[in-house]
């Protein structure tokens, strides 16, 4: 069967030859080049906009908020973010004006002749400033959203505890840094607006465009071009860029291309939410958790955007993959005058994972236990209850992943060996290298949180062409992770035809149904399942047709041939042609339905938060140079339970790539801010891991099949992003005896932490 095989990537040829068309590779007739003019202040009002009278503006298309024919907002959860600021400015880089010209050079030149004056107000720039409330910038308390998850009796739990351990952990912004910058082309005409560009979610763009231009579903057409990475960064922000390009195109009545350069992309688009997470944990002497109080505060930035759902995922994952009967988790998201934070692989989970895993390290150290033992004694197993009261009934690979990572990395022996080596190194004063080995254990709920999938009812279709080829109709996008390949594998396996006989329609809202966004580790598990059901439906239609046609009761489809009682009746193509001749088309759509027994209470935040979880364990080995305080990650051994790997190489590619992105999060990536503006908005000074920073990664794929995923598959996209940063910090703790509670673990931060520990 083709599922589980490493077939060649469906669009691989185009990508390897340079033939794949990314948005910036497309040039249209009469196309103009657009540019966004942005706020230079963090908070205030626009006083005046001056167009240099000495400059020839006749060649420039200019659009501001007054040119918007419909509503001035980018539709998302709250619709509070304007497409173009009218007067009030809430963050640096907020879009104010749009201009377009015949060439990139000309539009850049024109931008230099626009002067905007502001009346500045004191901005709120940090979580602390937002909470203190000296300036109110949102509602009455600067809070975008808050959640409470409570179960059992926390006070009673603390009374039963032998020890109460507290910790505060801080996590930073992180830039997605897809290598292809954001970009869109808008094409006006015939009462329609067509968008082509780099995106994860064509139907998000579609939804956003309609109210801005007062257009109907059919009048907005959104087509995804080959997309050079997303990681969440191309989830919601592309709606803004598409609408900007469309507004210029609408005004100019010509196609407009709007491509960000790297500096603009880093400065203006969304980041991972930074946060402060406090733990107060009641434990027994043997390490068992008896009470857990967790307080999460995330910085949402200037507009609501996706913050409530990031916060909710963070809150639900905050206790980690551990059992505790008495819990209280409070989660708040604040408004600040910084560019809105948004989706980034992991979506709230990497933040809380760093915190709960550091807390486990702290508990182990304070109780004098091995950190592995503390994880094991608290680990969620099949039949256990999660923080939201969900009983885990299927596909729980917790023990398997932890055991696999521990055994494969030789964790126990290596910890002993490293301790001896470090002791020897301390005796020889010339030896300034120390090693450390640390582990992390984590889980990730796949699909939308709570009742999201039940409400969305994602749709996908499969049709059989007159040539007898299967074609998949889905809005799930290929962003490098392998959507096209695994969907074709799923359909080939379901229909019993070869991989080469399946093709996939381009994500184009005029041709494919709304499968929901390509986010939340939902593409394989949720949309892949719907695609599988659609294939099953189309196959059954055809089987019924053939059975009737030949008067044969038991017809099977095997390798493209219809067989009854061991006899070949006809080929798939032949029957498809006959069916299409009679019925017009051979196509079936399916919708997602939650597995039986899944219940979620939005009011109390209790119940089945996700249909299933994926599980992971990382062991990181590091070397620290005590002269330079540089941390080198030598190796990460990671075991991840993904249900079933439809394509093992692609699954491993997700795990390795996500793990390295998390190495960046833990060690390197740090934004530098000055009065609400990112100062290091360049690849020269915002550092992501290069091949020389990349450790050896040994990946162990664990397959605990999920009965409601396609061929047993669960989510894999985000899980690997959760584990590496805490594993590295645990390894640094092992090497130095100092638990660093804030990432990234830069040499500067490590120096300060070590000197503080030594009492200097």
């Amino acid at each position: 069967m083709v599922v589980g095989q490493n077939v060649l990537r469906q669009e691989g040829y185009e990508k390897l030859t340079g033939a794949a068309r990314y948005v910036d590779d497309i040039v249209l007739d009469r196309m103009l080049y657009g540019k966004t003019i942005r706020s230079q202040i963090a908070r205030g009002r626009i006083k005046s906009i001056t167009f240099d009278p000495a400059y020839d503006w006749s060649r420039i298309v200019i659009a501001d908020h007054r040119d918007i024919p419909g509503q001035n907002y980018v539709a998302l959860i709250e619709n509070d973010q304007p497409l173009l600021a009218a007067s009030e400015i809430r963050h640096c880089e907020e879009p104010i004006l749009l201009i377009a010209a015949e060439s990139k050079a000309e539009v850049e030149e024109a931008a230099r002749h626009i002067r905007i004056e502001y009346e500045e107000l004191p901005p709120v720039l940090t979580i602390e400033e937002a909470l203190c409330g000296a300036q109110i910038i949102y509602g009455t308390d600067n809070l975008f959203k808050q959640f409470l998850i409570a179960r059992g009796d926390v006070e009673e739990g603390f009374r039963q505890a032998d020890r109460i351990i507290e910790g505060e952990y801080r996590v930073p912004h992180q830039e997605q840094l897809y290598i292809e910058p954001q970009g869109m082309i808008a094409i006006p005409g015939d009462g329609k607006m067509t968008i082509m560009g780099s995106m994860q979610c064509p139907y998000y763009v579609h939804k956003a465009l309609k109210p801005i231009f007062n257009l109907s579903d059919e009048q907005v057409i959104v087509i995804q071009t080959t997309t050079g990475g997303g990681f969440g960064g191309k989830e919601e922000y592309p709606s803004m860029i598409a609408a900007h390009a469309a507004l210029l195109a609408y005004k100019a009545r010509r196609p407009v291309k709007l491509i960000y350069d790297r500096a603009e992309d880093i400065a203006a688009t969304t980041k991972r939410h930074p946060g402060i997470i406090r733990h107060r944990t009641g434990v027994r002497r043997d390490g068992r958790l008896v009470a857990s109080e967790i307080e999460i505060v995330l910085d949402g930035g200037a507009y609501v955007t996706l913050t409530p759902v990031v916060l909710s995922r963070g809150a639900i994952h905050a206790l980690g993959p551990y059992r505790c009967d008495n819990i209280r988790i409070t989660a708040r998201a604040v408004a600040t005058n910084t560019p809105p934070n948004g989706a980034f692989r992991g979506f709230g989970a990497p933040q809380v994972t760093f915190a709960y895993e550091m807390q486990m390290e702290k508990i182990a150290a304070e109780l004098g236990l091995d950190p592995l033992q503390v994880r094991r004694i608290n680990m969620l197993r099949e039949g256990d209850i999660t923080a939201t009261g969900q009983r885990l009934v299927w596909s729980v690979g917790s023990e398997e992943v932890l055991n696999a990572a521990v055994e494969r990395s030789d964790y126990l022996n290596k910890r002993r060996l490293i301790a001896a080596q470090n002791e020897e190194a301390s005796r020889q004063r010339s030896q300034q290298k120390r090693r450390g080995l640390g582990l992390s254990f984590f889980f990730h709920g796949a699909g939308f949180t709570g009742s999201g999938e039940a409400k969305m009812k994602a749709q996908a279709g499969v049709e059989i062409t007159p040539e007898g080829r299967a074609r998949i109709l889905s809005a799930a996008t290929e962003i490098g992770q392998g959507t096209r390949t695994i969907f074709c594998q799923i359909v080939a396996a379901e229909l019993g035809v070869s991989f080469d006989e399946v093709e996939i329609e381009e994500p184009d809202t005029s041709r494919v149904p709304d499968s929901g966004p390509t986010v939340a580790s939902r593409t394989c598990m949720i949309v892949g399942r719907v695609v599988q059901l659609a294939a099953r439906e189309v196959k059954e239609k055809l089987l019924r047709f053939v059975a009737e046609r030949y008067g044969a009761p038991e017809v099977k489809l095997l390798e493209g041939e219809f067989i009854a009682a061991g006899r070949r009746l006809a080929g798939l193509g032949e029957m498809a042609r006959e069916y299409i001749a009679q019925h017009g088309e051979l196509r079936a759509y399916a919708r997602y339905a939650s597995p039986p027994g899944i219940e979620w209470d939005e009011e109390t935040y209790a119940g089945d938060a996700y249909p299933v979880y994926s599980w992971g364990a990382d062991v990181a080995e590091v070397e620290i140079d005590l002269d330079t305080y540089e941390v080198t990650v030598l190796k990460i051994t990671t075991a991840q339970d993904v249900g079933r790997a439809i394509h093992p190489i692609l699954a491993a590619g997700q795990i390795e790539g996500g793990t390295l992105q998390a190495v960046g999060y833990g060690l390197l990536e740090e934004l530098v801010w000055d009065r609400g503006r990112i100062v290091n908005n360049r690849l020269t000074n915002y550092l992501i891991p290069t091949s020389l920073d990349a450790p050896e990664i040994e990946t162990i794929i664990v397959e605990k099949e999920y009965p409601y995923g396609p061929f047993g598959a669960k989510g894999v996209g985000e899980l690997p992003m959760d584990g590496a940063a805490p594993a590295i910090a645990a390894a640094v703790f092992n090497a130095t005896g100092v638990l660093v509670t804030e990432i990234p673990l830069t040499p500067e931060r490590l120096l300060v932490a070590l000197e503080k520990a030594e009492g200097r």
Partner: protein
Amino acid sequence: MKISFQVNGQLREIEAPPMKRLLDVLREDLRLTGTKEGCGEGECGACSVMVAGEVVNSCLVPVCQVQGCQILTVEALARDGRLDPLQQAFLECGGAQCGICTPGMLIAARALLDANPHPTREEIKEAIAGNLCRCTGYIKIIDAIEQAASRA
């Protein structure tokens, strides 16, 4: 200014301002869009091409500097619709995900294998250190280059 050079074995003559970036000349004047722009300041390597056998970031090279040079871009690798061994290895090993770094990565790898047909993994890492990839964790790219070398 009139400038002539060879691109992928073909003589090309163009009229361009001398300081126009080689990247823009390739992408705009010659419509060779396989070469990508990721940062515009020589950090990401997505625009890597070979000039006279050396890997350069074409976003940092003014076109006046390539007068009379041989330039190689990703478009030259496949012949008659058939992938070359390096591309084939990337395809089989999972060395390309989103694909945006792939053309530059292939050029860096090609230059390495031309100079050192059987590199170690460390030498491969060194050779692609100027080419950023955000998808793969580099593991499968290194695997692919190793596989191509072993088949050569």
